[in-house]
């Protein structure tokens, strides 16, 4: 009996396998032909969405910024918080490499870091944190309702976890880098863990 069951499962799997592979290829891989050690670039095509996204938040110098202020540039938006020890600084560090490798062409890219923890990430903290990576990076924060508008626009979720003593909570949050093209359309959702080379490949795809 269990043998029958196994065979049935195996048959079902065999039938599903080509489709699984198609899905994997469709979602992953926009290709990275730099060869060598560069890993394949991986991103989720979000262009079908077709919406022009916008939000209004305050930057780390106190200036009100709209996403639409950066039209003409490719925007890399990342949501996180400065007490995040791993994903957030690693992602920003990759973009330090991206800027460095692109040289002058880095002017065509704007990195925006939106804190999902405005309670602890004060303007002062962001004003220290962003330039510690690159003075061109912009940190953004907002009142809960403004932050909510921004996270809703990108379908970003975040949840406070733990912290009995009030300040020691961590946050679970969406860890995609969102690539928005020069006309303000969301193009790619890039999962965490891409190398600077992979990011450059993806950015170059939507630069023109």
């Amino acid at each position, binding site marked *: 009996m269990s043998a029958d069951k196994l065979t049935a499962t195996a048959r079902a799997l065999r039938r599903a396998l080509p489709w699984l592979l198609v899905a994997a290829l469709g979602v992953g891989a926009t290709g990275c032909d730099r060869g060598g050690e560069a890993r394949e670039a991986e991103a989720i095509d979000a262009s079908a969405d077709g919406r022009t996204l916008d939000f209004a938040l305050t930057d780390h110098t106190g200036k009100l910024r709209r996403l639409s202020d950066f039209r003409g540039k490719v925007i890399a938006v990342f949501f996180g918080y400065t007490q995040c*020890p*791993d994903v957030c*600084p690693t992602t*920003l560090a990759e973009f330090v490499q991206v800027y460095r490798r692109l040289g002058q062409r880095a002017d065509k890219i704007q990195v925006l870091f939106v804190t999902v923890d405005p309670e602890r990430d004060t303007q002062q903290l962001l004003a220290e944190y962003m330039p*510690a990576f690159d003075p061109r990076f912009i940190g953004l924060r907002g009142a809960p309702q403004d932050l909510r508008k921004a996270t809703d626009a990108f379908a970003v979720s975040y949840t406070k976890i733990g912290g009995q003593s009030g*300040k020691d909570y961590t946050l679970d949050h*969406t860890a*995609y880098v969102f690539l928005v093209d020069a006309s303000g359309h969301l193009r790619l959702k890039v999962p965490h863990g891409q190398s600077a080379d992979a990011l450059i490949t993806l950015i170059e795809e939507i630069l023109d």
Partner: protein
Amino acid sequence: MDTKRMALLFAALAPVVGAAHAEVKITDAWVRGTTQTQTASGAFMSITSSEKAALVGAASPIAGKVEIHEMRTERGMMHMRRVERIELPARNPVVLGPGGYHLMLMGLKQRLVEGASVPLVLTVAGSNGHATDVPINVTVAPITAQHSPANHGH
């Protein structure tokens, strides 16, 4: 009990006591540097225990508290959880690194300046439940560090 018998007894016990205290080696320990106002950071390292053991806690005089955290990303979401312990199999290095486990230093009492060294005490429990404190010094890496300083070439 005469001294001779006592010595024999100790001689017999010694290896047992030795086995209860797993020898723990820490390599490539680093903590991410902070800015003036930041009050938390993550520490990363490789831990190898001579015997089966578990990392059950950590503390530092420069932090209000230190917790063991596990990070994972699932369907685009980054999840962070406090864990009670990290199992250390005998002679197999366990890496606390970006994308996995880390020690979370919270309530930092001072800025972590790149190039400095900060003290950390790891509490390791042997298979018999006996806990030992392992004091280490951790190098402060640049805020932009992606790997351990050993293979951090820029």
